């Protein structure tokens, strides 16, 4: 793996949490296929899901020597071995819930990939995709927050519900040389700016559940994740080595 100009290498397993974030969110977005509110939006969400899947594959491919093939990494690990943050594993909920989750995550992934670009080739490539995901989420947050009373209520409710999963994003990941506090300040300012323009209130509640600080990165996940994983992995586990 290449090294940072300043000489800080990206640690051997440090990219696993990034790959797991991308894979898990990709799967959640894929669950909208056939259910999105309009056809155009279904295509947009599927596009974002495929971007993320591509990122996950590239990151897993770089871990082949340590963890095995892409399929093994995605389909044959147990829940406790996944290092994704808990935000991305949260169920889709309604469309507003999905959009707020997208905003929170893309506003995190964009500056993170930007910082990692010099040391991680995938990040340099993916940063433009992520900028589009961030823009998509912003456009919808503005329209839902500042739309009807119904859309505003649902979007605010989603923000309040997901807020406690946002603190974990800035728990340092071992092996990634990133100024996490700076990243957090940037994220907070960005989200606050979008919320202000959308007429939404930034929640004042804690950014961690009492039990959940940094938990996803340690392999501790919320209850819906097990069911998601069962669905995602069952085909590969039922037919090991099957190809098509």
């Amino acid at each position: 793996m290449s090294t940072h100009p300043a000489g800080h290498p990206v640690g051997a397993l440090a990219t696993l949490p990034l790959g797991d974030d991308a894979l898990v969110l990709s799967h959640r977005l894929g669950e909208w296929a056939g259910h999105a509110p309009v056809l155009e939006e279904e295509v947009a969400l599927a596009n974002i899901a495929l971007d993320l899947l591509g990122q996950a594959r590239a990151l897993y491919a770089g871990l082949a020597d340590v963890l095995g093939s892409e399929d093994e990494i995605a389909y044959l690990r147990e829940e406790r071995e996944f290092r994704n943050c808990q935000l991305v594993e949260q169920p889709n909920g309604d469309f507003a819930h999905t959009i707020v989750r997208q905003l929170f995550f893309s506003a995190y992934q964009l500056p993170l990939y930007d910082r990692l670009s010099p040391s991680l080739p995938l990040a340099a490539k993916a940063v433009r995709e992520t900028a589009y995901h961030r823009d998509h989420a912003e456009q919808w947050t503005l329209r839902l927050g500042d739309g009807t009373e119904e859309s505003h209520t649902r979007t605010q409710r989603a923000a309040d519900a997901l807020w406690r999963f946002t603190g974990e994003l800035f728990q340092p990941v071992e092996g990634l040389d990133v100024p996490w506090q700076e990243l957090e300040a940037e994220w907070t300012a960005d989200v606050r700016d979008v919320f202000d323009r959308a007429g939404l209130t930034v929640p004042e509640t804690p950014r961690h559940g009492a039990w959940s600080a940094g938990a996803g990165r340690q392999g501790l996940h919320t209850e819906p994740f097990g069911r998601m994983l069962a669905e995602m992995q069952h085909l590969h586990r039922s037919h090991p080595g099957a190809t098509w």
Partner: protein
Amino acid sequence: MSADWPLWEVFVRSRRGLSHTHAGSLHAPDAQMALRNARDLFTRRSEGVSLWVVPAAEITASSPDEKDPFFAPAADKPYRHPTFYEVPEGVRNL
């Protein structure tokens, strides 16, 4: 939801120097979202370098009923086509 959304016609310029070509249509709540939907629907395989979206309601089209008076008078005037002279050998790019 999309039943309430207006229809937009999408025009894609595939390369610099070419003109925008009609690619299809889509529903969107406003122009900015129409542009983004057009990007996802029509240019995700590098089909374009520029996009236009136009509200379908703003397009004035010729009517099929007027086809004859509109277009027929040109049919029997073959001298309007530039085919009555010989192209000298060696002329390229004509």
